C-alpha cells in the first residue's frame, strides 16, 4: 500500500468518527455552565475528553487545514474548560478569603507593611518640620482656600454638615479614599516608585497640614476631626502602599521565576488584601461623613470609635473574627 493511500484511508477512518464528535459537543454544550451531580454525566464527559484528545492529535497530522480540525479543536477546548472549571461556592470562598487567605497575605507582607509605615511616618515628620520651620511652604501642599480658612482661625471642616449632607459626604470621601488606595497599589507597577510617591506625598501633606493648623492653634481641633476615621484610613493607606511595594519588588527581584510570573503572583496575592482595604475604607468613609464633622460627639467618644475600628481592622486582617469557624470545624471533625 502506498503512503498516500494509507494516509487517505486514515483520513477517511478519522472523519467517519464525526458522529461521535457531534454527540460529545452536544453533551459538552448541555453541561457547560451547569451544576450537575450526575456521575454518569461526569464519566461521559471525561470519556469524551479522552476521545477528543485522541482525534485532535490525529487531525492535526492528517488534516491540518480542515474544518474538521477547527471543529475538533473548539470542541476539545470546550471539554477542557468544562472539566477544569472549579466548583464555585461563594459563601465558602468569602470565609476562606477572610479566615485563611488575607491573614497569610498579611504574614507575607509583614516587612513591606513595616517599611511602608516607616516611610509614611518619616514623611509626616518631614512635612511637619518643613511647614513648622518655613510656614510659606504650606502653599506646596494645601489649596489657597484651605490656607485662607485656617488663617481666619477656622478649620475647613467646621460647619461641613451645613453645606453637604452626611450621606453625600460619606460617598464622596469613601470614593476618593478608595481611588487613592487603589492608585497606591497599582502604582507599584512602576517598580514600586509610584507607591513610594503616593505614600510620601500623602505623608508630607498630613504632616504639613498638622504643622500649619498648629501654627494657628487649630491642631487640637484637627486631631479631634481626624481621630475617629483617621486611624483606619491611614493604616489602610500604609497597607495599600505595602501591597504596591510588594508588586514593585516582584518586578525588580523576580527570583527564580520570570518577571511576568513573579508580578502575577505578587499582584494576585496582594490583591486579596486590597479587597479588604476597600471594605475598610467604606466603613471609614461612613465615620468621616457621619461622626467626624458632627460636633455632638465628644473627643472621648471619637477616640473610642477610632481605636475600636482600628482593633476591628487588626482582627479582620489577622483572621481572628472567623477563627471560631475553624475551631468549630475541628471540633466537629
Amino acid at each position, binding site marked *: 500500500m502506498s503512503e498516500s493511500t494509507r494516509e487517505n484511508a486514515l*483520513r*477517511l477512518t478519522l*472523519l*467517519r468518527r*464525526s*458522529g461521535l*464528535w*457531534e454527540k460529545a459537543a452536544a453533551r459538552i454544550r448541555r453541561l457547560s455552565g451547569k451544576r450537575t451531580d450526575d456521575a454518569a454525566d461526569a464519566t461521559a464527559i471525561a470519556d469524551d*475528553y*479522552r476521545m477528543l*484528545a*485522541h482525534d*485532535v*492529535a490525529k487531525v492535526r497530522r492528517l*488534516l491540518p*487545514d*480542515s*474544518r*474538521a480540525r*477547527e*471543529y475538533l*479543536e*473548539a*470542541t*476539545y*477546548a470546550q471539554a*477542557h*474548560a468544562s472539566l*477544569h*472549571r*472549579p466548583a*464555585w461556592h461563594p459563601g465558602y*470562598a468569602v470565609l476562606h*478569603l477572610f479566615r485563611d487567605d488575607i491573614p497569610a497575605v498579611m504574614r507575607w507582607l509583614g516587612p513591606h507593611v513595616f517599611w511602608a509605615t516607616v516611610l509614611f511616618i518619616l514623611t509626616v515628620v518631614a512635612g511637619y518640620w518643613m511647614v513648622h520651620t518655613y510656614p510659606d511652604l504650606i502653599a506646596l501642599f494645601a489649596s489657597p482656600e484651605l490656607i485662607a480658612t485656617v488663617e481666619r482661625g477656622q478649620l475647613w471642616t467646621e460647619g461641613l454638615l451645613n453645606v453637604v*449632607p*452626611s*450621606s*453625600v459626604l460619606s*460617598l464622596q470621601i469613601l470614593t476618593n479614599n478608595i*481611588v487613592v488606595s*487603589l*492608585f497606591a*497599589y*497599582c502604582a507599584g*507597577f512602576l517598580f514600586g516608585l509610584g507607591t513610594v510617591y503616593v505614600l510620601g506625598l500623602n505623608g508630607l501633606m498630613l504632616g504639613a497640614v498638622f504643622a500649619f493648623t498648629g501654627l494657628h492653634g487649630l491642631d487640637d481641633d484637627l486631631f479631634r476631626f481626624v481621630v475617629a476615621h483617621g486611624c483606619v484610613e491611614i493604616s489602610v493607606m500604609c497597607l495599600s502602599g505595602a501591597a504596591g511595594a510588594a*508588586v514593585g519588588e516582584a518586578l525588580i527581584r523576580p527570583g527564580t521565576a520570570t518577571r*511576568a510570573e513573579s*508580578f*502575577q503572583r505578587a*499582584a*494576585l496575592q496582594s*490583591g*486579596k488584601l*486590597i*479587597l479588604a482595604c476597600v471594605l475598610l475604607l467604606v466603613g471609614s468613609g461612613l465615620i468621616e461623613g457621619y461622626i467626624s464633622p458632627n460636633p455632638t460627639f465628644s473627643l472621648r467618644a471619637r477616640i473610642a470609635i477610632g481605636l475600636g475600628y482600628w482593633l476591628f481592622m487588626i482582627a479582620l486582617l489577622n483572621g481572628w473574627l472567623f477563627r471560631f469557624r475553624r475551631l468549630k470545624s475541628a471540633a466537629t471533625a
Partner: protein
Amino acid sequence: MDRTSDLAVDSVTGVDVALPVAGPGARSFAFLIDWTIRTILSVAWYVVAAMVHNASWSLAAPLTPDAGWFVFVVAPPATIYFLYHPVWEVATRGLTPGKRTAGVQIVSRDGGAPSVGALLTRNVFRLVDSFPVAYALGLLTALFTRNNVRIGDLAAGTLLIYTRNDATLARFPGRQLDASSAEVLSELLRRWPALDSMARRRIAATILADAPAETDAELRLQLENLTKETQ
C-alpha cells in the same frame, strides 16, 4: 485560522489544548460594545431619575443637592459605569455582553475559568491600563505582548481567547453526504478558484465515479456539467 496565535495549554491527556488568543482588534471591539452599553444605561438612569427627582423635565442638579439626589440620581449611574465590568465578569466567570458579541472570553492561563480574585485584580488594574487617556497604555501593552494581554491580564494571569462557538463540520444541506465526503468537498470548494480547468474536470470525474447511486440528481447533474466544462 492563524495557528501562530494559539496558546498551547498542557492537558492530562498529553495532547495540548490550542486556545486561539484574541488580538487587540477583538479586545477593542468588545470594549467598545461594553462601553456603549454602560454609557447608555448610566445616562438613561440619570435622565429618568433626575426628571423624577426634579418633578419636571429639567436634568440639572439642584443648587443645594440633598441626599436623595446623590443616592438616587448620581450614585446608581456611577455604580453602573464603574462596576459594570467586575460584576458581569464575576457573575459569568469571564464574559460580558461585549465579549460575548465579539466572540471572546477571559480564561486563566491553564485554559480554565478564572478565579474571582483574578477577575477582580484585572479590573483593579484598569486604573493603570487607562493611562493616560482612552486605555492607551492597555492597548499598547496588548499590541506588544506575546498573548496580546493588557497589564491587568498580566497581573491576574488571564488572557482573552476566541470562543469559536461557530466552528462546524462541513455540511451541505439537502445533500446526502457522509462526513468524509463533505470534508473533501469543503476543502475542494475552498481551493476551487486556484485550480485550473483540467484539474477541476478530473476531480469532478473522480467524485462522480465514486459517488454512491443514491446521490441526488441535482448534484450529479452539476458534477457531470463540470466534467464537460471547456477551457
